[in-house]
């Protein structure tokens, strides 16, 4: 769920754009370098962007009978690395704003910061840590997708709490409120997204091992 158009004060919109800009520029430079080196990679990156967009629209089967959607940034960060995800997420969020009215133009900087920077970097950090500690790819991808999903919504809650501190208890009270609404309710969905990641990685290990090796996701076959 992205922060809608018109929801953040103008000054904070500008500040979140400024905070996101270095990461987006870094990601864009990585994409330009990669495209000059291997022009065919433009298509693979575009496919990754389209996949991230569509993945966020896939409904997860839920134990309660309702459905929800994964953010997809954890899987993207593990497969394509966080700098590229910062740029791809910017494109995806721009498309979501202009094709679906999810998010907005003035809130794009804030949404990129939570979904394109904090989520992928946190998820990727967990993946790297888990693999260095000798955990299996299944544990690594579960942790990466769980943390990427949850940290995205925690960051959204922080952004909203900064914008609208509680009239009685200030920033802390507002953070508790927004975390309760946006992050606490997200825990089952983050677990679901983690489980989906385990199954997807196992499936990819079976049918797309060369691609996983080329992307450096694993050095051997994935037995998730």
């Amino acid at each position, binding site marked *: 769920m992205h922060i809608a*158009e018109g929801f953040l004060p103008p000054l904070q919109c500008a500040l979140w754009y400024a905070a996101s800009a270095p990461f987006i520029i870094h990601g864009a430079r990585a994409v*330009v370098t990669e495209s000059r080196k291997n022009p065919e990679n433009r298509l693979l990156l575009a496919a990754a*962007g*389209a996949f991230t967009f569509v993945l966020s629209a896939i409904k997860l089967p839920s134990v309660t009978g309702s459905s929800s959607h994964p953010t997809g940034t954890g899987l993207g960060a593990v497969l394509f690395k966080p700098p590229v995800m910062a740029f791809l997420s910017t494109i995806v969020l721009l498309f979501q704003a202009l094709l679906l009215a999810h998010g907005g133009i003035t809130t794009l900087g804030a949404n990129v910061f939570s979904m394109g920077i904090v989520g992928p970097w946190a998820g990727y950090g967990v993946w790297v840590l888990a693999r260095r500690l000798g955990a299996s790819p299944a544990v690594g991808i579960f942790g990466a997708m769980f943390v990427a999903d949850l940290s995205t919504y925690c960051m959204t809650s922080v952004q909203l709490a900064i914008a609208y501190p509680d009239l009685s208890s200030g920033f802390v009270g507002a953070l508790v409120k927004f975390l309760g609404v946006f992050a606490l309710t997200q825990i089952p969905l983050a677990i679901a997204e983690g489980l989906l990641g385990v*199954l*997807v990685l196992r499936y990819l290990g079976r049918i797309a091992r060369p*691609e996983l090796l080329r992307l450096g996701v694993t050095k051997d076959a994935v037995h998730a």
Partner: protein
Amino acid sequence: MHVIAVDDAAWDSPWRSVRVGEKALLALGLVLTALLTPAWPGCVLVALASLGLAAGPARIDLRVLGVSIAAPMAFLVIGSASVALTVGDTVPDAWWSWGPLSLSAASVGRAADLFAHGVAGTLALLMLAMTTPMVDVLTSLRRFRVPDALIDVASLTYRLLFVVADTALGIRAAQQARLGDAAPARRRWANTASGAGALLVRAWDRARRLEDGLALRGFENVLTTLPARRDASVRFVAGSLVVLTAIWAVCLMAITSGWARGWAR
């Protein structure tokens, strides 16, 4: 599919022939007005202007507009309700309280303002989205000297989006035809995962085939396409400025005479 409905509306819009910059002037002008003016009358006027322009000259199907605004409305309702609820010591003029939670005129008024800003901003943005195909937006970025490689990736993402979305629908239909939805929960999870995995593999495969096709046609560097030539419309720009100026004039009058409600940001 919802994404195609918005894009179809943009391609069919009579404003397709208007320059992107001119439409952006109107839509982003309305977005900024919704952001900066008081909820009453600023946001109300922006919402009315957006709806009037959408139903009138832009000839946007209001049913598609209604479906498109449903998702952001969910965020706006939940977000505004969270702002309306106060946590901590009960405020003196509370309407209702229960433990640490309370509702007051100030908190509800603040939430209502926020909701108005969100609805007006979203309607203004949708007016741009439903009159301007994404391909026009991306082409116009070349004028701002955005590197070609970045525009190429964005343009190709846009084109692959529909192929990948179509593939996802195909995979889903095949799984449903095999009674995938009637399977036990564990099997449904495996179906969802194999669907997502297959989607990624097929997206890569499609990208490779598209790359081969482009390389065979000599597109090995920049994928520049000829932009459609559109004449500047003085009438459109003048009309946009009249609408924006009128809203700002009413807002300034409301602020100076004291009947404006909500905060100007």
